[in-house]
C-alpha cells in the first residue's frame, strides 16, 4: 500500500504545528518532519507545500528569512509569527471539537451494531 497524500486543508495546520514545536525550519525539513511524525504514512507533495508556505506568509502567519543549514547550505527558514501562534491555537481548538463530535458519532454507530 502506498503512502497517503496529506489531506487538503490540513497541510497548513501541520506546518504551523511543526513550526511551533521545532522553531524556524526550511521547507525541506518541514516536509521531512511531517512525514516522520506520521510514521512515514504521509507523503508531502512539494507542489502543494511551497504554495501553502507562500499563502501562510501572505496571510502573515509565518515569516521567512534566508539562513544557513547545519551542513552549511543556504536555505530559506520559516518561523511562526504571533498572529500564526494565535491562529494555530484557535484552529487546534476547532479541530479538537470537530474530531470529538465525529468520534461521538462513530461511537454511536458501534453501539447500535
Amino acid at each position, binding site marked *: 500500500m502506498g503512502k497517503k497524500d496529506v489531506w487538503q486543508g490540513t497541510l497548513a495546520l501541520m506546518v504551523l504545528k511543526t513550526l511551533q514545536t521545532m522553531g524556524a525550519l*526550511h521547507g525541506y525539513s518541514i516536509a*521531512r518532519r511531517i512525514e516522520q511524525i506520521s510514521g512515514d504514512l504521509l507523503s508531502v*507533495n512539494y507542489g502543494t507545500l511551497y*504554495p501553502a508556505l507562500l499563502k501562510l506568509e501572505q*496571510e502573515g502567519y509565518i515569516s521567512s528569512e534566508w539562513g544557513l543549514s547545519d551542513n552549511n547550505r543556504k536555505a530559506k527558514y520559516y518561523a511562526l509569527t504571533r498572529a500564526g501562534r494565535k491562529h494555530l491555537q484557535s484552529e487546534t481548538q476547532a479541530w479538537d471539537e470537530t474530531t470529538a463530535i465525529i468520534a461521538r458519532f462513530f461511537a454511536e454507530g458501534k453501539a447500535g451494531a
Partner: protein
Amino acid sequence: MRCLRALLMRLGGLFGKDRRDAELAAEIESHLQLQIDDNLRAGMDPAEARRQATLRFDGVEAVKESYRDRRGLPWLETAWQDLRYAVRVLAKDRGFTAVAVMTLALGIGANTAIFGLIDAVMLKALPVERPGELLQVKMGEDGTVFTNPIWEQVRDRQDVFSGLFAYGGDRFNLSPGGEARYVQGAWVAGGFFETLGVQPALGRPLTKADDRRGCPATVVLSYDFWQSEYAGSPSALGRTVSLEGQPFQIVGVAARGFSGMAVGRPMHVYVRLCSEAIVHGKESWLDGRSIWWLTVVGRPKAGVSPQQATARLKVLAPEIFRATKPQNWRPEDIEGYTKRTFETGAAAGGISDLRGQYSNALLALMGVVGAVLLIACANVANLILARSSIRQREIAIRLALGSGRGRLIRQLLTESLLLSLTGAALGVLLAQWGSQLLVRLLSTSRSAVTLDLHVDGRILAFTAAIAIGTALLFGLAPAWLATRVLPNAAMKSGGRGTIDGHSRFGFGKALVIVQVALSLALVVCAGLMLGTFRKLANMDPGFRQEQVLIADVDLRNARYPEPQRLAVFAQVLERLRALPGVHSASSSDITPISGMAWNGEIVVEGYQAKKRGDSIAYFNQVSDRFFETMGTPILAGRDFSDRDGPAAPKVAIINETLARKFFGQASPLGRSFVMERGPNPEPPVEVIGIVRDAKYGTLREETKPTAYVTERQAIEPARMSHNFELRSATSASDLIPGVRTAIAEVNPNVIIQLKTLSLQVEESLTRERLLAVLSGLFGGLALLLAMIGLYGVMSYNVTRRQNEIGIRMALGAGQTTVRTMVLGDVAILVALGLATGIGLSLAGGRLVERFLFGMKASDPAALASAVALFAAVAALAGYLPARRASRVDPMVALREE
C-alpha cells in the same frame, strides 16, 4: 482582514517578477541540495542521490507554476495579457475600430449628456450642510408659496425647526437709469444662511438676529457675482450697489459654489426681506395678505422626524390661517382659506421651476438616447459578427491548440470592453460639449439657465456602467457564436467562412430588424416633436407677432408720485406714436404670451355658471389702438376712444370666446357685465366691441374668454412700470434707437427694457424647441446607424455569397436578376423591421402624447412619412451591395475557390 492582507501581498506579487523567480529557483535548489545531502548520507552514489532527489520533487516546473499562481493574481495577469492582445488586434484593424468606437462614442456620449442634465436638474443635492434634512413647508401639491403674514406667523409659532427661513426670488435692476440691467436675487428672511450652513467667503451673512422690519438696506453677494463685478476685491465690502435705484450696502459674500435654492437659476444678490419697503415703498408686499411669493424651508430640530414636524404644523394651521385672513375676499373664499393646512416636502435638491418644467421631457429624452445606444450596440455587434467570420481560422487554431472556450470568450469580451471604454472616453468629451449646447437651448433672454455640468464621479460612474453594460450587450452574443465552431471544420474550409453560416447570419439579420424597428420608432417620435413645434410656431395666435417691439418702461428711478404716473405714461405713448417708422403704438398691462395673467369672475345677466370656476374671465387693461398694433381685428363695435374717459360709463371690448360663452347667440354689443372684485358692488361694464380670439398666456392654451378694459378708466392706481407696443413699418428692431431717445427725452432716469414680440413668443416654446431639436438629432442618428447596419450586413452577405452568385451568373442569371435577389433580401429585412417598428411606435406613443400639440401619437401622416423616409434610405443602403453583387465576374468568383 487576513484576506485583504493576502490580496495586497498578491497584488505586490505582480511586480518584481524576475527577482521573485530567482528566489524561488534558489529555494528549490537548496531543497534539492538538502535532499541530496541526506541521500548521500544514506549511502547513495552522487548521481543516484541527485536523480532520486529530483524524482521525489515531482516536476520542478509544475511546482514553480503552482507557486507563481499563488504568488500573484493569475486572473489579473491573464486580463493584462488579454488587454495587450486586444490592443494589438484592434490597432491592426483600424477601419473596424474607428467605426465601432465612433458609433459607441455617439451612443454613450448622448446618454452621458442627457444623464448629466438629469443629474444636475433632478438628482444633485444643494451644496449646503446636510441637505437631506431640509424640509420645504407647503400647502399640499399646488400651494408652495406663502404670503408674508403667513410666513411671520409660521416663524413665530413653530417649535419643530431649529432653523427656518423664507425667500422670494426677484430680479433687481442694477442700472440707475436708461437700459435696464438685471441680476437675479432674493429677498431672504429668518435664518437663511444659518439654516443652510452657508459660510461667508467674506464679511458676514445676514442673520436671523437682525431680521426686524425696517432694517437697513444691506446685501450679501454671491461669490460669482463678487468675482465678475468686483474682480474678487475685498474692498467691495462696505461699498454700495444700486438695486432698483436704491443704494444697498455690501456686508458679505456667500461661500463659493452657493447660488441659492433654485437649480439652474442662480441668485446673485441676497437682500433682507425686512428692507423690502425701501424698494417697493407704499406698495410693499410685507402686509399683502393675497400676495403669494415666499418659499419657506426649514431644518427640523435634532430628533424631530419630518412626519412629526408636519403633524405639528398641521396642528398650528387653523390658528395661523385664521390670523392671516385676506381682506376683500368673498366669505366663501375666506372659509376655504381658513380650512387650509400645511404639508412638507424634501428640499435636499433645492426648489426649481426647471424641474417641474423639464423632468418629464428629460426622462423622455433619456428613453430616446437609451434606444440610440441599443441601436449602436446592435451595429457594433453586427460589425463584430462580420469580423469573426474572418477570424474563424484564428479561433479554430486556438481551440485546436487547447484553449478553453471560456478563455476565448473572455479574450473576445476584453476586446469588446476595450472598444466600449474607448468609446465611452470619447463620449464623455462629446457629452461635455453637447451639454453646453443643451443648456443654451434651455436659456431664454429673460431667464438664463446656468447648470453645474462638470463631470463628477457620479457621471463617470454612470458612463462606466453603461460602457460595461454595452460591451456585454454587443460582445457576448458574437463571442458565443464565434467560439461555437469545430476546429477541424473551420481549418479545412479555407479562408472563407462557410461554416454554420446560416444560423450565424440569422442572428445578424435579427439585429438589423431590431435596429430598423427601434430607429423607426425614434424617427416617428422625432416627426411628432417636430410637427408639434411647427404647429405651435406657425399657428395663428390671433395677433401678428412680426414687426412688433415691446418696451417695458419703469418709472421707479424717476420718482414720480403715483397720481402723476398716468400722465407720464400718456406722454411716453404720445412720443412713441410720433416716432418715424412707427405704424401704430399702444400700451397695456399685459403683453401676449408673457406668462402674466389677470383673471377674475364676471357676472352676466342670464348666464348661469354650472360649476365653480366656470365664470372666470381673463382681463387686460389697454390703451386705444392696442388691437390695431397687435393686428387683432375688431369684428364688431368700436375701439376705445377719447369718449371713454374716467368719468364716462365703464366700457370693455370682449373676444369671441367670451361673447359666445357668456352672451350666447345674441349680440353682446350694448349689454354689460360686472367684474367681481371683493365684497363691494362694482359698476356694470358695457360691451362696446368684439375682437377676434387671441392667445393670452401660452400658445398651447385653449383660447381664454378675455375682456379688455381701457387704461383711462383704470380701477387700480397706476403701477410703476408699464408695457408699450409698437408696430413698425419695417422691422421691429429698426425702432430701438428711436424708442431709447424718445423715452430718455421724457426723463433720462426712466428704465426701459426692449424685446420683440416674436422673441417673446419664440421663447415660450423653449421646451418644445428642445424636444424637437434633440429628438430630430437622435432620430437622424438612429436612422444613420440603422442604415450603416443594413449596409454592413448586406455587403457582408454579398461577399459571402460571391461563389453562389458567380455560379448563378455562369448559369445565365442576368445582372438584373442578381440585383433583384439582393434587393429582395433587403426588402424582407426592412419590411419586418418596419412592421415591428410601427407596433413599437404605437405602443410607445402614449409616452410622448403629453408633449404633443395638435397631433396624436398615432398620427398617420407622421407614421407614413417616417416609413417612406426609411424605405428610401434603405433602398439606397441596399442598392450599393446589390450593384456590387451584380458586377461579380463569374470567372473570378469561381476561380477563387
